[in-house]
């Protein structure tokens, strides 16, 4: 009751204020908004519109030519086998890493919630790799999964032949994906943990009274209530790993052959080594549209799950 009174009295005060000086708060609001809006216009809206325009142009930075060519860039891209190869590399990597991160993070979060003593220690340790930079990851795993590295040391100790993790065309993407899971699973772990703590204990009590075992508890209470966290993790993971660049750039240079040559590396080299800005922009636009479609698809599938 008392909070009700508070609310209405504060609303009264606000309404009173507004009647007295109507334009002041509006100008104040715009003043507060101004710095962000300027940054948004210059570095988001204008680049976005330019990017769309650029993808319909032949723009060679070195020759200085800028011609409108319609959909020619897109037509060329559809016949460009390297585009499809690098697209497949990025997509395969993104799906593997997204799944790996989500599974490891969910398991880690469930385990963390089970543990009271030492939870902070484990949480800090599991998050530690997230704060390392890509250059450090490159240096560490250059040593760990190289042919004469730490991992192969133990593999040969056990009597198996050494595995060329980065030199083998079928193994290179799963290997890079494994490195990336090591690097990144700590972040989704925190998201899942926060979501687990937001599930009311009373739901578990009620389900236990109804005789639910631990598997049933997970399947019918935990999992449905983690839906939004899962959606958040899958969407953000897919977006960020579809854009993979640093790991192959440092560890494999895209090799062997083009087996780990991701789309961003192709776009990067097209634009900044060969200066075909229009063609690169068209590839970027296609990639952006594809990612948008996948995200909308993920949102639909997970969003429409039946309420419990």
């Amino acid at each position, binding site marked *: 009751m008392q909070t009700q009174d508070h609310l209405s009295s504060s609303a009264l*005060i606000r309404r009173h204020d507004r009647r007295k000086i109507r334009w002041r708060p509006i100008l104040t609001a715009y003043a507060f908004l101004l710095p*962000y809006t300027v940054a948004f216009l210059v570095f988001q809206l204008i680049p976005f519109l330019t990017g769309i325009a650029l993808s319909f142009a032949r723009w060679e930075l070195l020759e200085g030519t800028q011609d409108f060519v319609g959909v020619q860039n897109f037509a060329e891209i559809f016949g460009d086998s390297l585009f499809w190869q690098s697209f497949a590399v990025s997509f395969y990597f993104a799906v593997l890493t997204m799944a790996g991160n989500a599974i490891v993070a969910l398991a880690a979060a469930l385990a963390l919630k089970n*543990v009271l003593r030492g939870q902070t220690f484990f949480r800090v340790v599991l998050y530690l790799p997230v*704060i390392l930079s890509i250059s450090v990851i490159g240096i560490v795993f250059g040593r760990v999964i190289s042919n004469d590295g730490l991992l192969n040391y133990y593999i040969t100790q056990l009597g198996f032949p050494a595995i060329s993790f980065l030199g083998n065309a079928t193994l290179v993407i799963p290997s890079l994906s494994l490195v990336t899971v090591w690097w990144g699973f700590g972040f989704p772990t925190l998201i899942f943990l926060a979501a687990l703590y937001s599930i009311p204990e009373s739901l578990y009590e009620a389900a236990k009274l109804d005789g639910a075992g631990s598997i049933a508890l997970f399947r019918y209470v935990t999992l449905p209530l983690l839906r939004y966290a899962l959606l958040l993790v899958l969407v953000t993971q897919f977006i960020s790993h579809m854009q993979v660049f640093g790991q192959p750039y440092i560890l494999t240079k895209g090799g062997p052959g083009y087996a780990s040559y991701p789309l961003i590396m192709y776009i990067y080299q097209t634009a900044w080594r060969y200066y075909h800005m229009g063609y690169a922009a068209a590839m970027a636009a296609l990639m952006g549209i594809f990612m948008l479609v996948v995200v909308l698809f993920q949102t639909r599938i997970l969003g429409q799950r039946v309420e419990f």
Partner: protein
Amino acid sequence: MSARRWRRRFTRGTIVSYLFLGLLAFLVLFPVIWIVAQSMMTESQIYRWPITFVPAPLTFDNYVDLFVKRPSRPELPIARWLFNSILVATSVTTLILTVTSTAAYAFARFDFPGNKFLFYCFGASMLIPSQITLIPTFLIVRAFGWVDSYHALIWPPLAGFFGVFFLRQFFSTIPRDFEDAAIIDGCSPLGVFRHVILPLSSSALVTLGIFTYLASWNDFVWTLIVLNSNEMRTLTVGLTIFNGEYWSEQGIIMAGAVFTSLPVVIVFLILQKRISESMLLAGLGGR
């Protein structure tokens, strides 16, 4: 189910959890410890087979070498790179916190025409993948004459909407009574913002600050694109290029990796409690 059986099952679950977490922690720490150990070894011990873990003799030459110029290898201006990284990440974080918090406050608390419309317009930009804007942003930065300067790294990240979105959510949870009291006491809108809203949002600001700082510190693609000269590079890019061009001395590279990670790790250890706290508060997981 009897209480005893329940308790037994509970302990079994806890044991499995500890084992699993122990395994994960081992897998995380093992390579890290090995690299730290190698950074304190002589070059011949680093390449010794079978692999060793205890530096013998223990040497800090690799760390000293980071700061000493040698004619036999490309230049490694690590102190300058460290300075660049700190300067850029600090500027970006300060500016983003300022710009996004003011905008978020306007969206959360003011009833101006276009509030909803602008919020959704800006918000839609979060769906636009950064690839589409990457090349045009480079062309804009180039037109400003910012290639190979700090400006190129500091200003473009300000356009990101996530901070505004995150802080607006948080500001909306603050009861209005606090502001009303301040207004009655004669506080201006800027005063309310500075003395009421910001202090009450410190954990959200710290979280956003940490994520921004890390993102800036670790940025790779953009930094690679807009910087050319060796002494302008950040640690992340400088160390990577040095590593790629110069393979013959592994010890110094690993010392570089450890040395450059240390500041971030220390800051993280100090602030780690804040991160998980405000993730709960901001409802990043739940809803």
